[in-house]
């Protein structure tokens, strides 16, 4: 590893250039004459002055301090860090698809609109929904969109007393946050001892102030809500709508569908289930599907097929409007489209089967070493607890940091909040049994060490570019930018 401590700004040398632009070939405008003086910049922004070589080396070397799915195992629970097929990257950079302006005349963008239209069809089929909007930029954004639709639906019926959204405590954190942001009152319900929605508790709060319920399913414990049909019937019975957080669709593709479960709205995360890369933080894409009754409320435009031509339809009086510019994250959608077209129905089902088998395999192999709070057949992921280890002073954090030294990305830790010392493990279907076995072996060794020699686990990571970082300091006295 090359140690290069500098920021790109610290490599700047006055007068050095890294760009290659065409020479200006039109008359020059005298800025001072054309613009009022106070509009013109007085001090240059502190951008670095570096050569192309500098830039390439800087970011290439930075990349080496980062771990991606192509580096190795990445069982980050809830994030579905599956392998991102390379062909999809190639597809996304076909100039004839990518170099398109969103406001072009639809007649000149029929290829892209056809992709969007078909993607709506495919995802509708996968979710068991009527139509899908591809506009939301991420899962959380899909949730917001769904909640706006719930609101619009009730308001359209002049039912303005429905102000509550019910959210089980095993739901993903974005669920309550989105509900709050959409202007709802969030009502939590606890999980029962099996890790599922407590039906009694649910029953007790259902009334005509309930706008809807948001269910992460499989939930953040990796469990399928066994009473899901009961739940959807109960909520519908009281007049509420049902929102399905389908970020965990990787567990059930081709096996079961939110629409069939009685849900009215569901989102999927293309950047998880549909193998588009997460880009170190994004971009993602969080399409939502809705049942027939809710189609009028979808954001505009909806792409319609009219006589073999694809037309963005803006004339939708009940639409909630727009939740994002243009058509959504087309570049991400393209990759997911490619994925669906290469996998087909049987491929997607095989994905879910393998994902679930892999998770259960690890669960089974670790159950003698770690506490597993809800230890039964899980879906695509499960949550273990390092509480046993914590007794000898070794926390989930310590275990995670030791995994770093073994070349493995740790599971999600301290999430979900309802499990203490949680480690949420999601292997995905793209990992081989050998990779799983290697992980299991290391996890077992760590469990043994936690008992025999807990101190030995406190100094990890030792092999990374930096050792443990002081997060408290970062938050107390935030340094959020470089200054000259």
């Amino acid at each position, binding site marked *: 590893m090359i140690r290069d401590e500098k920021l790109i700004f610290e490599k700047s040398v006055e007068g050095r*250039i*890294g*760009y290659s*632009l*065409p020479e*200006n070939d039109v008359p020059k*405008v005298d*800025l001072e004459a054309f613009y009022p003086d106070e*509009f013109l*910049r007085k001090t240059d*922004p502190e951008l670095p002055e570096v050569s192309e070589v500098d830039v390439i080396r800087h970011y290439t070397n930075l990349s080496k301090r980062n771990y*991606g799915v*192509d*580096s190795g195992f*990445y069982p980050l629970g809830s994030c579905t860090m599956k392998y991102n097929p390379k062909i999809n990257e190639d597809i996304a950079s076909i100039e*004839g*698809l*990518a170099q398109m*302006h*969103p406001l072009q005349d639809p007649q000149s963008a029929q*290829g892209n609109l056809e*992709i969007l239209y078909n993607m709506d069809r495919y995802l509708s*089929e996968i979710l068991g929904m009527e139509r899908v909007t591809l506009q939301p*930029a*991420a899962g959380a954004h899909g949730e917001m969109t769904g909640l*706006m639709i719930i609101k619009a639906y009730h308001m359209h019926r002049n039912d303005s007393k429905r102000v509550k959204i019910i959210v089980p405590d095993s739901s993903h954190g974005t669920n*309550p*946050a989105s509900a*709050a942001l*959409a202007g709802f009152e969030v009502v939590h319900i606890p999980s029962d001892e099996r890790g599922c929605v407590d039906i009694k508790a649910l029953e007790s709060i259902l009334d005509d102030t309930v706008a809807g319920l948001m269910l992460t399913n499989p939930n953040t414990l990796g469990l*399928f809500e066994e009473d899901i049909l009961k739940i959807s019937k109960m909520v519908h019975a009281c007049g509420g709508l049902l929102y399905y957080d389908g970020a965990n669709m990787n567990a059930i593709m081709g096996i079961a569908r939110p629409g069939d479960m009685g849900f009215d709205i569901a989102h999927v995360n293309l950047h998880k289930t549909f193998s588009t*890369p*997460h880009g*170190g*933080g994004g*971009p993602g894409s969080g399409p939502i599907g809705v049942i027939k009754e809710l189609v009028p409320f979808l954001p505009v435009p909806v792409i319609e097929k009219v006589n073999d031509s694809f037309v963005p339809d803006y004339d939708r009086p009940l639409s909630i*409007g727009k*939740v*994002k*510019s243009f058509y959504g994250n*087309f570049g*991400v959608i393209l990759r997911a489209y490619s994925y669906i077209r*290469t*996998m*087909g*129905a049987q*491929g997607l089902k095989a*994905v879910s089967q393998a994902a679930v088998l892999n998770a259960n*395999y690890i669960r089974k192999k670790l159950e003698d070493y770690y506490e597993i709070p809800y230890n*039964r*057949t899980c879906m695509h992921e499960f949550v273990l607890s390092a509480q046993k280890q914590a007794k000898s002073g070794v926390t989930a954090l310590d275990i995670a940091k030791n995994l770093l030294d073994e070349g493995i990305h*740790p599971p999600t830790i301290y999430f979900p909040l309802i499990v203490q010392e949680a480690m949420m493990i999601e292997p995905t279907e793209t990992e081989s*049994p050998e990779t799983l076995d290697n992980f299991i072996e290391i996890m077992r060794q760590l469990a043994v060490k936690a008992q025999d020699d807990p101190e030995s686990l406190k100094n990890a990571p030792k092999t990374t570019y*930096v050792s443990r*970082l002081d997060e408290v*300091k970062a*938050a107390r006295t*935030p340094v*959020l*930018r470089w200054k000259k």
Partner: protein
Amino acid sequence: MKSSYIPMTRQQQEAMLSAVGVESLEELFSAIPEELRLKKDLNLPKPLSEYELKKHMNTLARKNSDACENICFLGAGVYDHIIPSAVKHIISRQEFYTAYTPYQPEISQGVLQSIFEYQTMIAELTGMDAANASLYDGATALYEAVLLASRFNGRKEVLVARSVNPEYRKVLHSALKYSGITIKEVDFNKEENNPAGKSGTIDLKKLQDKLSKDTAAIAIQSPNFFGILEDIKAISQKAKEVGALLIAVCDPISLGVFESPGVLGADIAVGEAQPLGNPMNFGGPLLGYFAVKSPFIRRMPGRIAGETTDSQGRRGFVLTLQAREQHIRREKATSNICTNQALCALAAVSYLSLMGKKGLKEVASQCINKSVYTYKSLLETGQVSQVFSAPFFREFVVKPKIKPSVLNEALSAEKIIGGYDLTAEYPELEGCWLVAVTEKRSMEEIKHFVNKVNSICQGGDY
């Protein structure tokens, strides 16, 4: 079903099933009520191999008229700028693009440091104290800014210039619909009722009329949707007078030559950073930036990278101020955002590094030179007329003799992507045409464009 993406062989599958203690794959799904389990395959097209997929996608691409084969004069929020080759090479490093959000900082210094550098550059450009790691796009960034302002001062009204990108205003309208925050739009100056040099900018009198102690924030855009610069300073003074915040939507390329909103008194700067090294991508992914003055730092939405030290005292970076975030605070979080646009931000930071001080200025200047040249040339044809008088950047409004929709269609046959038709969004600007000219357009292309506009408008045979 065998797939090159699923390494488990049939034999291994058997072994694993028995290790788990189940008889079959089906048994793994027994928690799913029987009646829900699908009895047949999903109705999806039959799978394609890699090569067939490539052919299929190329066929679809041929149904498009892209901006490589065609000459693009369309902007209106998304711009066709030159992207240095090195940018794509950097963001194609798997360590960057196949990583998740940097939850484990020790193996994520690449992403974290690049975000830190990005935050710095955005803060520098906008003249702000801090920036976040990016948001979905300019429109949602504006929405988040309004939320921040309203929460900060507890007020429930926001004044938005009509010269702000209509796409942004639409997002704002839908997102704020049930939030308790009301939006009042403020009109722009028309040519007829205004002294030269002001038309096309926000109508300060009308703004003044709507301003009150209830105003949480004023949101303006500069260069605005018509390409015209607003007097940010004057507006910020008005905002200050009533204790409202000023949110400025600014194009980052323009900030290579124009005074930063921070210096001119804005409290929050947001906008679309797609022009910084990101392709148009049919409108997504885009790159919303979000920058604030100090008082608002802990109220920013989204991810933020911060500097710290490791156990050996070495500089390092982490995601910070996470107490604001949804995975910890749930319904009390400042925003619901989890996923951002880090890879697009990496493209932006690579772009800005390559361009540097001088290059960014050069790009901005060429945009000015070329748009002014196009504007003058168009007017000289006598086939289009002036609409506004204030100085513009990269983009301008004119009124051609024939309808923009007709004109665009005719241009399309000439492999030209014409300007934006303002008619639908601005009925008072019926027949007006918003034309963008970036540094990418050569004089030759511009002349070709002007000639075509000329001949089409004359109804001559072009």
